[in-house]
């Protein structure tokens, strides 16, 4: 039996987190010995972009080309994906956690009467039931969760599996979904999005600054470092509260929770609420002039010293090394 993966697009490109979800589906299919991965993609997308989903592990792509679905209209996406899913006869649906993915997953759970687990961090265990490991208490613990329904939905956290890159092109089929007007009743009237940047929740490397940066005018050196690394920029809560940086860059308990490969914290003391947003990072580097900063206890590597001297040196050293 197949595994279905709901993939999201942003301006005509399939999101990287969605490609990771496809690879998760591929790994799960290999583990269960169950068939192939069918991706479901919505809205206007070029044929090449759709076929390329195959490189991440999909054998087939069901494309619902309705251009009203280019925007993330939650109810309409849920209706469209539910129909595509049912048409395949599959019992497992995978998607990447995101602001749209979460909202769509919750509605799908009810529509499909499927048990839903979010923040999934690895492949399920299949001995003695379908047991999924999820991150809880904002990354401070994990729970093994048994899904008891025949249909299952997993919303996976970033870096749950490595993205597969060596698959072959997928077969693309168009799928026509019937979506009622009422699913489009709530309108998206405007979208503000930072352009040309790596998006924080999806970034492999994050460079974050705290109050130790002393003011928004000093962010240029962090941006230089981030650009050198192909990283996203983040910040601590006080920095976003004072308005030095926009709210969508706030990393922490009540902001964005990140799970990058590398997190570089500069001038951030490491309050427990900030650590809650970064504790899923694979490697943490802390640069702080205070050797007693609690963040050092949560770090893999650290430099005690003045960020204003170290950050430009680090950028230069990285440029020299690459």
């Amino acid at each position, binding site marked *: 039996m197949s595994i279905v993966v709901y993939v999201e697009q942003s301006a005509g490109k399939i999101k990287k987190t969605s490609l990771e979800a496809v690879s998760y589906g591929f790994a799960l299919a290999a583990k269960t010995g169950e068939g192939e991965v069918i991706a479901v993609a919505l809205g206007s997308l070029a044929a090449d972009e759709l076929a390329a989903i195959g490189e991440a592990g999909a054998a087939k792509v069901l494309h619902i080309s309705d251009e009203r679905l280019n925007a993330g209209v939650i109810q309409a996406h849920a209706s469209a994906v539910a129909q595509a899913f049912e048409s395949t006869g599959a019992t497992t649906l995978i998607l990447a956690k995101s602001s749209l993915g979460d909202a769509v997953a919750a509605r799908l759970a*009810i529509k499909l009467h499927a048990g839903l687990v979010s923040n999934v961090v690895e492949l399920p265990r299949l001995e003695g039931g379908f047991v999924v490991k999820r991150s809880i208490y904002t990354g401070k613990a994990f729970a093994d969760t*048994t899904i008891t329904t025949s249909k299952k939905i997993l919303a996976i956290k970033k870096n749950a599996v490595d993205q597969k890159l060596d698959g072959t092109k997928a077969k693309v089929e168009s799928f026509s979904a019937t979506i009622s007007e009422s699913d489009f009743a709530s309108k998206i009237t405007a979208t503000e*999005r930072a352009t040309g940047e790596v998006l924080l929740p999806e970034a492999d490397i994050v460079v974050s600054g705290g109050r130790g940066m002393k003011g928004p005018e000093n962010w240029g050196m962090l941006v230089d470092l981030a650009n050198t690394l192909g990283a996203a920029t983040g910040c601590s809560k006080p920095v976003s509260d004072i308005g030095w940086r926009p709210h969508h860059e706030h990393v922490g308990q009540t902001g964005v929770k990140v799970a990058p490969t590398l997190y570089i914290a500069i001038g951030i003391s490491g309050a427990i609420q900030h650590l809650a947003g970064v504790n899923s990072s694979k490697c943490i580097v802390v640069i702080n002039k205070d050797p007693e900063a609690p963040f050092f206890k949560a770090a893999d590597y650290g430099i005690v010293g003045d960020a204003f001297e170290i950050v430009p040196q680090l950028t230069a050293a990285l440029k020299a090394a690459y």
Partner: protein
Amino acid sequence: MKILVCITHVPDTTSKIQFTANNTKFDSTGVQFIIGPYDDYALARAVELRDQTGGTLTALNVGEAETEQTLRKALAIGADDAIRVNSFPKDSFFVAQQIAHFAKEGGYELILMGRESIDFNGGMVHGMVGELLGMPSFSPVMKLELEGTTVKMAREIEGGKEHLEGKLPLIAGCQEPIAEWKIPNMRGIMSARTKPLVVVEPVSQETQAEASSYQLPPAKGSVKLVDKDQVSELVRLLKNEAKVL
């Protein structure tokens, strides 16, 4: 207008997380419980909207008897009455069914809650309630204004925000900066003691994905410090030792 705010009873954000009974139960020893921080934003905005519309505001929690202190705090902050659905909140689906049932029974037009609970972090209950009731549901909502039956919202998305317009009835999962947290004053605390708090039994016991056991992450090794005059050594370590570059 009738507004419902759903709140969670969760460990304070600074709590040390530990488990007991062979890792099958949360260890609440020495833990202080609070209204979930996101729910606190939802509650604060709900109080403002109740005052703006001259309606009523009900706080609801699915939880056992010990959560009443948290519901009383919601009453002290400004809710008019409270409902406790008397059960451990077993999973998102279980909680969503209870909320959907009592929301429908009470005829609430606006249902607010936090974007997610800070214990299980699922962030799924608002969407499930929306689908169960056939209502639109949005999350994470950082701005919500009422103009008659029109609801104008801003929803945080990756790297920005989306402005939305919908109609009542509607559900929103809230986060900052939708409103400033409200701290109960003495008058609020006194009046909360006598405001109605009804206890109802769950309408369904059905669950789909219950947690069965818990684990803590492996202990972190100690930090490797690099001298501030050897910044290129950090690059070497990240590349060759941590293999993250």
